[in-house]
């Protein structure tokens, strides 16, 4: 059932995108391979966009999604006609590389067939989708950064879950990662012969950050589908002056904005690029902007409707929030510390803009997330070879080439991210990475045509990078392969991989639909089957948990107002929690010993143990204020 659901959704994406390209008279304009990969990327966006409207039309449920998917899938007929009759005779080298490409593809499939264990995915990407399916519409959670956020991509996970359950979502993210590989290949084929194009696609899709974020619910890999089509469509708009390409660029930009706030930076970067490269064609810019608005409005309207701020909580203090919305000045000030923490060790300066790529590659700070899950050394390796190619082709309309346009969009986005971005995690830049690596790879190949002596070192270098990437991908999937090759139960797998998972079976067996668990371990959210409340000290103010708060009466009142009946706390209890326990307001009902893991893929990196206690809230408790700090 899960596999069928993923296949149905793949056809829906392909068909939906093909319908759009056909309406814009572009289906026959694109090379056959691009017709397929662009269809998938655009159709993926269309699927998430349509899901937002489902509650208003036919229902956000299995029949609703089935009707939607089958309607979109009808577009595979014209797409099939477009690619029929295409013949391709691969060389031996191409076949060899394709065989190598099976390694990350199959290891990704293994990860998809094991229970999902990625932290961010379990904390909010999958839960948002699961709760949307359960309640028949997207669920608004007044939590900054991971609750009240654009959810276009998560709505495609909801489609997968509604049609085939949680494993269908796993397979769906695997399909979308594989299709990104295909999109990279067809993009590289614009400039490169089949074998170097395949090598380029393989090198990019196996970057550690891609492998880590690929078969998970994380947004960036899916956003890369949009950013690549967006950038190529901007280049085609400039080249041909056709409004159809401007509309495609706008649609891709819009669904990127609907996927994550950082998508807004992509919209701006692409818009500025269009102004720079087609300054006397305002119609193209208008078409781009209107298409971006049509594709991207949904989640900003949704946010505004629930909070009063279309980009909650960024406009706090500048726009009027709805009365009673659970946010306040203290929480906003504390939330801003998130960005300060994430940027610790790196000043926001021009020097950082220049040195960040070097530091993120060769001497990463922990905040970059790039030691195990970065971009690898490919970019730096290619630079001098690419300069050779650029020098060789310097008189051939280089300033207006499509590759220059890709680079400009990526650089503008990077500058905006360094100026405005809340975090320095490299994976937030993932959608821009192919826009840099693709031009570098093409330029490097051109350089080799001029200076064949450089070929051997480059081939040896990219061979080493590919080996490193594949080793990382294999290590990443080893855990899942071990699970699939054994008789280990899903619960035992999760117990081994998710710190604190012991709480889940107890909660699901003990609590019911009238209870609500206040939990602090966010990775448990997806597997809990009872109402829950994630107690984040920084992202929410419904139950204020900021450090330094001392009033247990207020905490108690907020918990009761939120309908919380139970909580799980780490021992020993401190501060307000200790006071509540001393006054008999928290009654211990279960105790757990949990383990900590540094890395799921590399358990040898170490870990440890901690103890937790589950408490029931004693509703009859009369809490007295304490003067103890």
């Amino acid at each position: 059932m899960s596999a069928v659901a993923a296949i149905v959704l793949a056809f829906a994406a392909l068909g939906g995108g093909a319908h759009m390209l056909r309406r814009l008279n572009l289906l026959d304009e694109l090379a056959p391979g691009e017709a397929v990969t662009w269809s998938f990327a655009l159709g993926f966006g269309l699927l998430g966009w349509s899901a937002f409207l489902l509650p208003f039309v036919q229902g956000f449920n299995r029949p609703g999604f089935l009707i939607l998917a089958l309607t979109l899938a009808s577009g595979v007929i014209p797409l099939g006609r477009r690619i029929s009759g295409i013949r391709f005779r691969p060389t031996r080298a191409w076949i060899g590389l394709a065989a190598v490409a099976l390694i990350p593809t199959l290891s990704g499939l293994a990860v998809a067939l094991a229970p999902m264990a990625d932290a961010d995915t379990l904390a909010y990407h999958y839960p948002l989708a699961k709760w949307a399916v359960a309640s028949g519409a997207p669920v608004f959670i007044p939590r900054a950064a991971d609750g009240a956020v654009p959810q276009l991509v998560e709505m495609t996970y909801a489609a997968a879950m509604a049609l085939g359950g949680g494993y269908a979502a796993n397979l769906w993210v695997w399909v979308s990662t594989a299709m990104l590989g295909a999109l990279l290949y067809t993009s590289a084929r614009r400039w490169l012969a089949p074998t170097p194009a395949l090598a380029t696609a393989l090198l990019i899709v196996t970057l550690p950050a891609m492998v880590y974020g690929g078969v998970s619910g994380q947004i960036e890999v899916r956003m890369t589908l949009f950013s690549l089509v967006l950038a190529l469509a901007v280049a085609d708009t400039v080249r041909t002056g056709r409004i159809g390409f401007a509309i495609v660029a706008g649609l891709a930009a819009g669904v990127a904005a609907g996927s994550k706030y950082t998508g807004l930076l992509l919209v701006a970067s692409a818009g500025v690029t269009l102004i720079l490269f087609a300054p006397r064609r305002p119609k193209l810019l208008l078409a781009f902007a209107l298409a971006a608005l049509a594709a991207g409005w949904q989640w900003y309207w949704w946010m505004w409707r629930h909070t009063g701020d279309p980009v909650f909580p960024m406009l706090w203090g500048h726009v009027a929030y709805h009365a009673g919305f659970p946010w306040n000045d203290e929480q906003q000030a504390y939330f801003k510390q998130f960005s300060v923490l994430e940027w610790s060790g790196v000043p926001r300066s021009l020097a950082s803009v220049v040195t960040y790529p070097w530091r993120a590659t060769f001497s990463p700070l922990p905040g970059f997330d790039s030691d195990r899950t970065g971009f690898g050394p490919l970019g730096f390796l290619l630079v001098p070879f690419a300069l050779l190619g650029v020098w060789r082709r310097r008189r051939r309309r280089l300033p207006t080439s499509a590759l220059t346009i890709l680079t400009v969009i990526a650089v503008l986005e990077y500058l905006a991210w360094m100026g405005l971005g809340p975090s320095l995690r490299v994976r937030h830049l993932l959608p821009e990475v192919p826009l840099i690596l693709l031009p570098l790879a093409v330029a490097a190949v051109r350089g080799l045509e001029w200076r064949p002596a450089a070929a051997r070192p480059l081939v040896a270098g990219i061979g080493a990078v590919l080996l490193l990437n594949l080793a990382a991908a294999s290590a990443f999937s080893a855990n899942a392969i071990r699970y699939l090759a054994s008789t280990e139960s899903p619960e035992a797998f999760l117990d081994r991989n998710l710190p604190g998972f012991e709480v889940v079976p107890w909660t699901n067996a003990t609590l019911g639909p009238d209870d609500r668990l206040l939990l602090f371990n966010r990775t448990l959210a997806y597997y809990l089957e009872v109402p829950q409340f994630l107690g984040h000290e920084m992202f929410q103010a419904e139950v204020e948990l900021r450090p330094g708060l001392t009033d247990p009466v207020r905490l108690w009142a907020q918990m009761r107002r939120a309908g919380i009946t139970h909580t799980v706390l780490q021992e020993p209890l401190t501060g307000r929690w200790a006071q509540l326990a001393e006054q008999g307001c928290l009654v211990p009902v279960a105790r757990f010993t949990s383990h900590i893991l540094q890395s799921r893929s590399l358990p040898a990196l170490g870990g440890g143990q901690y103890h937790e206690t589950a408490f029931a809230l004693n509703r009859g408790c009369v809490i007295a204020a304490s003067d103890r700090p």
Partner: protein
Amino acid sequence: MSLFWWLWTVAVLALYLNGIGDILATLLHLVLR
């Protein structure tokens, strides 16, 4: 002339491997265990 290209390739890989040295050491430990 090709010496430059070899030097560049080796230097980039060496710098990168040095940056992820802890992880490589762990992997090696896993392999040799």
